[in-house]
């Protein structure tokens, strides 16, 4: 039934093209080099809550087949370019994530990702804010810490609260069934954040949340002032999680330890362990310059620019039509 037709209106696709053009112009003006890295790679992602889609190459060089991973983000490959001396780089590309489909998710989506050698987290937040306020014609972003956000909205300190206190908080807000689903402190924090903080912050202007707990550091370095938190930041606007950035971890040893910790958690959760990306570790060992980087969900930015209610309204052919 009309499944051959795009789910996005041609008008929204025009606006989509205009946003992408504006982004390219923004980085051209700032002398940031546009790069392209492969969608396919030998290594996947170890992050416990991300899953690669996989495919198989068979042909010259690999008569028995080579298992390849569709990339969940171009992060590892872009860091290899940075270590090779690229300087500031940006990329607009497709990324792929298994197991994700919904109002804000399609298994194949577009990312805008960029890296700035020499930038602190605050400098990159300022640049992201400039881009987003220009594209969406909105005021520049607020910046608050993860801890401040919890204290201000819920009067609880996420760094010291225990599992029982976090569960009690969910129950108070009629989310008892969510509280019953996990014993993991950081899963509880993430759910509290998404259900009780995200919907109320960043209504009139975008808002950065920064200094996430160290356990949610991902690929960010820990704060030199307070090792309980990491130099990770996320941008929100009108209930949408728009971007995730780090003052990047540059130490190969620590990076390896985090990959191994991811695989440890995967074992606990009966998920398949992931081979560790040795290219990335070699690049870090060769010397990744201090830099900050951020990945921004381009489809979500376009949803905000057009007022779309569902990601399918800004994609020509989402999962059910591809």
């Amino acid at each position, binding site marked *: 039934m009309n499944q051959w037709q795009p789910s996005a209106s041609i008008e929204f696709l025009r606006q989509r093209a205009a946003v992408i053009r504006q982004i390219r112009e923004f980085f051209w003006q700032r002398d940031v080099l546009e790069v392209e890295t492969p969608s396919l790679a030998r290594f996947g992602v170890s992050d416990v809550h991300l899953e690669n889609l996989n495919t198989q190459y068979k042909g010259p060089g690999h008569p028995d087949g080579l298992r390849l991973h569709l990339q969940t983000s171009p992060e590892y490959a872009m860091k290899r370019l940075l270590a090779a001396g690229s300087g500031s780089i940006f990329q607009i590309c497709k990324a792929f994530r298994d197991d*994700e*489909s919904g*109002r804000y998710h399609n298994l194949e989506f577009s990312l805008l990702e960029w890296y700035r050698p020499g930038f602190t987290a605050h400098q990159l937040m300022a640049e992201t804010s400039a881009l987003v306020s220009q594209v969406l014609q909105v005021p520049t972003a607020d910046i608050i810490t993860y801890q401040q956000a919890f204290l201000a909205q819920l009067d609880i300190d996420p760094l010291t609260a225990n599992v029982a206190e976090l569960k009690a908080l969910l129950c108070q807000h009629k989310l008892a069934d969510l509280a019953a*689903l*996990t014993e993991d402190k950081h899963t509880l924090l993430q759910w509290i954040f*998404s259900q009780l903080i995200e919907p109320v912050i960043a209504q009139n202007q975008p808002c950065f949340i920064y200094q996430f707990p160290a356990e949610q550091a991902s690929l960010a370095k820990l704060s030199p002032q307070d090792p309980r938190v990491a130099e990770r930041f996320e941008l929100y606007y009108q209930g949408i999680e728009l971007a995730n950035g780090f003052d990047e971890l540059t130490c190969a040893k620590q990076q390896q330890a985090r990959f191994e910790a991811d695989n440890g958690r995967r074992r606990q959760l009966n998920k398949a362990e992931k081979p560790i990306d040795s290219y990335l570790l070699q690049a870090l060992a060769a010397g990744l310059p201090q830099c900050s980087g951020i990945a921004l969900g381009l489809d979500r930015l376009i949803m905000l620019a057009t007022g779309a209610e569902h990601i399918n309204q800004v994609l020509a052919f989402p999962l059910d039509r591809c």
Partner: protein
Amino acid sequence: MATVSTNEFRGGLKIMLDGEPCAIIENEFVKPGKGQAFNRVKIRKLISGKVLEKTFKSGESVEKAEIMDHELAYLYNDGEFWHFMNNETFEQIAADAKAVGDNEKWLVEQDTCIITLWDGNPIAVTPPNFVELEVTETDPGLKGDTAGTGGKPATLSTGAVVRVPLFVQIGEVIKVDTRSGEYVSRVK
């Protein structure tokens, strides 16, 4: 026991919750950045009719409710049960007051209704969207009123009370929308 994973959730799917069959009204996939995903689901309990929100960890499996809808003709009420029949197989099913609920007042003999069965037992009866019923009681209306300015209450042959235009008289048959309980038109 058949189960379904949250990946199969969609509007209309019937699942078991707290021992009661439920229908999914809305299903939302929520995934916090770098966190564990969950599904927030709006559900209608099919027996109590209660609507509630429930969350499931994404990928979790739940028991499927064995719910079947049958189109059956209404036959009669014996004082305790309402009897329905499949017009092709002549198989009959009796629904109790709990299953029929407020829809008793819309049951017209020979009308085709939807009988919802859970594990073979009727738990709900849905009348056709439109039924035709005779007016048994209403105040005499003013002649010449055709616009139906304010209307008046009218009792129908099944005991249902609906607001009708002033020109509708006792003995006339009217068409009613059972979903809203509103008068639609007179039937000639």
